[in-house]
């Protein structure tokens, strides 16, 4: 494939990674920003989203569109409830102590993963996309008779892949509106700024924490439901999103939503391009190196505010 179309294809593929990564990482960032805890089980909530999507669509056996819409609504909801319960049963009991939370969520990671293996099984299971039409994409060529449209071999995408990108943008915009324009958003921001003061003003911080933890997990699950028709539900699929989310959140600045989104787009696209033209391993090496540099030179991340 020529360089131009090849780069274009890499960018397209990278955008899908970026879109799903943005949703997942924003969930992680939200939890850290408000609750100041690191959720190591975040990738497993992502995986649960995909598994529930498979479960809902295959149990119903309904039309793929209906099944998928229901999965889009209920899988994140279920995952959110599980996460909120985890918060209530575990994190609250250890007072959100940062070190203990990390250890506890590692435990949650293994529990969720092994329970999925025991019930859902070790196979990768597919979910039918609600719509999926291949679109061949044109490219310009500057030939003897000026610019002409050509249709390079293999340059194409599918309607569903484009829809994933659009959906992620819409969801992120909605999240931003909720956080900045609604009472719920105000309560969350108040809790983030100073939880003691929020308690003094009658905000039920416990409930806010449970909700935020649920919301963070639900966002990861939402990302997974969107991507599962492209990939498949598999019990080990949470590892990669977890690693990439951490990379993104550190680069973007823990707790900064804008930074997280910008970093997700950057990492998603560069991962696509570097792995196409060089090697996927190099892409991971560079991303991890970038994390190291950010931690050295800008410990709060590119968009993070300095610690209080």
């Amino acid at each position, binding site marked *: 494939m020529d360089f131009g179309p090849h780069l274009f294809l890499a960018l397209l593929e990278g955008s899908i990674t970026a879109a799903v990564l943005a949703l997942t990482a924003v969930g992680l960032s939200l939890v850290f920003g408000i609750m100041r805890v690191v959720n190591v089980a975040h990738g497993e909530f992502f995986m649960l989203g995909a598994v529930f999507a498979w479960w809902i669509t295959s149990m119903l056996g309904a039309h793929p569109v209906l099944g998928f819409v229901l999965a889009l609504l209920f899988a994140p909801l279920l995952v959110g409830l599980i996460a909120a319960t985890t918060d209530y049963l575990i994190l609250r009991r250890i007072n959100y102590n940062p070190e203990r939370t990390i250890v506890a969520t590692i435990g949650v990671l293994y529990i969720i993963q092994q329970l999925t293996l025991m019930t859902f099984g070790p196979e990768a299971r597919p979910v039918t996309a609600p719509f999926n039409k*291949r679109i061949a994409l044109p490219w310009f060529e500057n030939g003897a008779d000026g610019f002409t449209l050509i249709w390079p071999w293999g340059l*194409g*995408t599918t309607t569903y892949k484009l829809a994933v990108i659009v959906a992620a943008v819409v969801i992120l915009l909605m999240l931003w509106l909720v956080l900045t324009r609604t009472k719920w958003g105000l309560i969350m921001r108040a809790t983030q700024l100073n939880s003691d003061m929020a308690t003094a003003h009658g905000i039920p911080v416990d409930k806010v924490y449970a909700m935020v933890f649920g919301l963070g997990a639900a966002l990861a699950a939402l990302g997974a439901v969107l991507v599962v028709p492209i990939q498949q539900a598999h019990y080990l699929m949470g590892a990669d999103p977890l690693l990439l989310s951490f990379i993104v959140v550190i680069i973007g600045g823990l707790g900064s939503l804008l930074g997280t989104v910008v970093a997700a787009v950057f990492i998603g696209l560069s991962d696509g391009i570097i792995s196409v033209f060089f090697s996927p391993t190099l892409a991971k090496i560079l991303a991890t190196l970038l994390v190291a540099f950010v931690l050295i030179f800008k410990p709060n991340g590119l968009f993070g505010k300095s610690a209080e």
Partner: protein
Amino acid sequence: MSKYPLSDISRRQALKKLAVGAGAIASSGTLPGLIGHSQAQSTQPIRIGFQVHRTGIGAAYGRWYDRTTTAAVKRINEQGGINGRMVEIVAEDDGTDPKRGAEVLEKFASKHQCDVSFGTLFSHVVMGSSPRAGELKMPYFVVSEGHHVASGQLNRYTLQPGITDVKSQVEAMGPYVAKNLGKKVTMIYPDFAFGHDHRDYFSTAFENQGGEILAKIAIPPTETSFTKYFAKIPRDTEVIYHVMVGPAVLTFVKEMGEFFGPSKPAIFGFIDSLEAVDIASPGLEFLEGTYFWEGNPRYAQADQSSHDKLYRAAVGVDNNGASVTDSKDVSTYAHMFGCWETLYIIKAGMESCDYKGPADRSKLIEAVEAMSDMPLSDEHPQGAKIFNGKTHQAFGHQYISKVNGGKLELVHTTSIEDTFYEDEVDYTKQSF
């Protein structure tokens, strides 16, 4: 090699009944010291350590290896066990991880007192475990397909008698692809030992047929998105040769279809790219008319042998290669027969050397090394095989199927001779 004549079985069944009777007397309290001891030796089960990929990237295979093993042992025990002793499987999860694989072998030897170990599929686990098997002097029967056994990299205690290796499979495919599909091939394979075997042996075999390999595209085995790799396929490719493993195989095949759209080249794949995956999955329609190597035809063919019928029913696989209880639970049919056949080879080996216990392990290895012809039978339902005692590797028929109406239809069966290559090692010269 002698099979298992009926008279033999009934003699053993009689022995078994005698043993049960002896056990009853012993447990009833008469002469506890005397009979109890002698009975303990003759009826103690033969313990086979089963190194199984319950978790990790091999889990889908592990599940079916487990089912096949359970079915084979059940049948062996119903036939009277081995040398009149029941067979007991001690299964341990190795997490598809080489380090844990070696630890599992230690457990088999020290904790479980197993007679032999068996059952590993993924080649890196075999590579990690085999040296330990040699140190423990524990016969290690692998069901892995890797060329590592016959290449001489392992040791006298490691054998692969129940499944053919990648080198012979791939070399037997070269002529068919060159003759029927095209001369310009692009190869796509996983970037580790198994994929490199494909790359090296197929390209040599194919170039010997006058073909040309245009590009070799290696994909990391943990990759989850593939379109970016397909962009490297040269435009003048006539045939795509693909083999993929791991949980993302369905994505791999689906994205290949989306990449090519309506103008696809001929496609020849190893069924590994679709093991445990339903060919009728949405997005795989483009596979219609493409070709697959199969270790053992997943769909029951029109001329299905009685042996395949028996084996299929015993393991619980329907005519489409899925579980009889769940049509979405597709088996790893092209590989798992190796567990069944290997267990019968262990049985035959133990019977021919009159295996009594761990002290006879080297006698068992010599007995297996002495085997050669293994005809198509209930014990070898995949087909006849020829075992090479020097290289510890079995050779057998390979199958090529074409997707027709959403099912795999057998179109070509290679001869066993097509799969031969020169010996690279003589393990029988190594000391025990």
